[in-house]
């Protein structure tokens, strides 16, 4: 008797589970672009990976102290009672991405969501976000005046399959930094512009003679995550001829990949031109920054983030008192002249982030108004405050960057030659595979083995037919 009841209960739960499991999440149709367009009472939410007093505090404070009051006031003048709230987060990228994925999966989440540019593809494929044209209507999206101020190359940050999904709010560029004082001590020119990988290596070998100085830092290993891919592997790989994704196929264990891994083996292996421990430790990237700030690291490939947020003498996390006199920069060379993508002599990689709209928002037009307000020239300038940063808008850039040599250099000389990562669902997994390949190589595995493992992993991710060598 008890047995029977038990069995029925268990069976019931199982059946219900299986039935409901099949239902998955709700991904119903997008709300009508004109939904609630004339509403007099509007509630909107913004979310970002920023929190007052913590990560990206400046952005969080800008949202709560500038964007929301200004927007609500402007709406009031139009006779609309708007209530905007901010959902802060202060965690790593992966948990943040998980949290907003879960929310979008179930039709919830904020109305305006800040995301990293490389998530656009996978969010779009999952149905989490829709092209701006669909959410707010084609004419509305195209009519925004700010669009003309955003370089089409930079628009790529929030574009997927030729559709714009959101508004990019900034971009960056990578250069090869070097310490002019250490160069002088080692007998190297202070207006250095390497023309090839071997130029970098020979400079590093000269720096090896300086005591207590690590010659070179090119990010490797999986501890640094995407920083390895963006500042390490990809700038090198695109210097061998092809980007990671070309003609609908992904680059496998090509000759270019082998050359890249060979360079890593040279730097962290026998020649000991780099510090292996930094590539292994959980906070290795921070350690490399601290060393550079203390004039103990000769050469490092990094983005403008290093210049403006890390070694910034006024408010950096590892301030470098003599930054403005001691730090030099140059474009990253291809393997040799002309071997870069598109036959370029120099290369760079760029990333960016932006905002998207929740396709299930109750107030599409108002949410778009909020998002475009956040990306207006005045608002962007307010966000930057006193720290110049490369924005998506040309007009703001020309005003704000004039005072900063490195940032104007990047905006002028690097952005035209830079390459963006493919905004595809599989990119994150391919990136991890690349990081693991460098991890193996710097920790002693042979380049051939690491390349073969990478090829196999890649085929497992994208399918053998979608790989090119």
């Amino acid at each position, binding site marked *: 008797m008890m047995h029977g009841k038990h069995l029925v209960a268990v069976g019931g739960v199982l059946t219900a589970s299986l039935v409901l499991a099949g239902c998955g999440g709700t991904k119903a149709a997008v709300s009508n672009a004109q939904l609630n367009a004339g509403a007099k009472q509007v509630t909107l939410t913004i979310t970002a990976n920023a929190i007052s007093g913590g990560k990206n505090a400046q952005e969080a404070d800008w949202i709560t102290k500038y964007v929301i009051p200004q927007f609500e006031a402007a709406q009031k003048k139009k006779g609309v009672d708007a209530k905007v709230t901010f959902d802060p987060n202060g965690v790593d990228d992966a948990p943040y991405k998980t949290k907003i994925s879960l929310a979008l999966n179930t039709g919830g989440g904020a109305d305006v969501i800040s995301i990293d540019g490389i998530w656009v593809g996978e969010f779009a494929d999952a149905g989490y976000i829709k092209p701006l044209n669909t959410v707010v209507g084609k004419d509305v999206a195209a009519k925004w005046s700010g669009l003309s101020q955003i370089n089409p190359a930079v628009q790529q940050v929030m574009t997927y399959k030729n559709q714009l999904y959101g508004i990019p709010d900034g971009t960056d560029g990578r250069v090869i930094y070097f310490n002019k004082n250490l160069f002088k001590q080692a007998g190297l020119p202070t207006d250095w512009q390497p023309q090839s990988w071997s130029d970098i290596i020979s400079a590093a070998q000269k720096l090896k003679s300086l005591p207590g100085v690590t010659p070179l830092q090119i990010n490797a290993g999986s501890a640094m995550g995407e920083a390895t891919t963006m500042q390490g592997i990809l700038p090198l790989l695109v210097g061998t001829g092809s980007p990671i994704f070309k003609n609908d196929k992904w680059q496998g264990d090509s000759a270019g990949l082998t050359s890249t891994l060979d360079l890593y083996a040279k730097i962290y292996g026998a020649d000991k031109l780099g510090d292996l421990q930094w590539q*292994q430790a959980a906070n290795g990237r921070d350690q490399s920054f601290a060393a550079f700030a203390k004039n103990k690291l000769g050469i490092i490939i990094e983005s403008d983030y290093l210049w403006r947020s890390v070694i910034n003498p006024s408010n950096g996390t590892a301030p470098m008192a003599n930054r403005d006199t001691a730090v030099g920069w140059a474009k990253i060379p291809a393997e040799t002249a002309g071997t870069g993508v598109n036959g370029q002599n120099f290369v760079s990689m760029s990333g960016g982030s932006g905002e998207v709209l929740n396709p299930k928002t109750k107030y599409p037009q108002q949410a778009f108004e909020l998002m475009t307000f956040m990306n207006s020239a005045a608002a962007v300038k307010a966000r930057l405050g006193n720290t110049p940063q490369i924005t998506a808008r040309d007009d703001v850039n020309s005003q704000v960057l004039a005072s900063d040599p490195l940032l104007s250099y990047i905006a002028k000389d690097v952005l035209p030659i830079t390459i963006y990562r493919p905004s595809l669902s599989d990119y*994150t997994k391919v990136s991890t595979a690349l990081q693991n390949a460098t991890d193996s190589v710097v920790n002693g595995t042979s380049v051939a083995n690491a390349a073969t493992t990478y090829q196999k992993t890649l085929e497992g991710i994208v399918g053998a037919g979608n790989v090119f060598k």
Partner: protein
Amino acid sequence: MPETSSNKEDARTSVRDDAERQTRQKSTHEDEDVVGLGKRRAVAFVAPALALISVFLIFPAVWTLYLGLTNYGLTGSQALNPQFVGIDNYVSALTNPAFLNSLWLTVLFVFGSALIGQSCLGFLIAWMMMRVNKVVRGVVEFFVLLGWIIPSSVSTFLWFALLDGSSGTLNLLLHTPGTAWLLRYPMWSIIVFNTWVGTAFSMLLFSSALASVPPSQLESARSAGAGAWAQLRDVIFPHIRGHILTNTLLITLWTFNTFTPYLLTAGGPDGRSEILPVFIYKLALQNGMLGQGAAISLIMIILNLMIALVYIRLLRTKEQ
């Protein structure tokens, strides 16, 4: 009652028999419904817990297991249109060298931290505490418990400070400057860390168990000339045998599934401390591959089940 025999063999045997008899008596009483609950009311007592568990545990757990048969992912087309892939996830996991590496590391981790570390150390401490005065006992128990009580996000920082390569406390104490323990000895680091965290539970459990051994039996054993080891083997172990196995089962399961080492080494360097919970976390959170994560969760449960069966079998045979 033990005889006043001075023959050591006889004394030991009779004391052991008494211990076993008491344990057996306890278990035969087990099935008596002394309070007159009756099966109906008993089911009513269990019902609230069972209801909560059905909705918030069984339902999502079964759903997760179902996901293990699909290629469901948190983002990408696999989120919109997950495909049923049958046992593909299991096959790819079992042929994945990274998974097998993770499995092996987990076995090492459980053996080192749960069995040898927490159990043995916990028992030793409980055993020793019987011989020291109350003050010392209080102080020792407090510090042992600190590791268990302090939240894991805090203890991570404590161990970073301890194991740091440049000027960590351990290097200062051992005069080994510059040794990056987390990088050179990642498995040892997480095994010792997990032992530090978990020993308190074993210590408490064994303390209670040892306290429940009738002192009269210990007395007779001692007067029969039994040394410490013999007392342990013949009087104490039979009494606490069941408790040893309960404890070991629980901490094995907990250690097998603990995720905290991720905060210390993130599974690195190069996957050298990537135990299964960390492996799944990376799959689920960094790659969003929830179908595979779910499949591996089931594999873990099956392994836990096998371990539990081994422990139960040991308990049964000993009772016979």
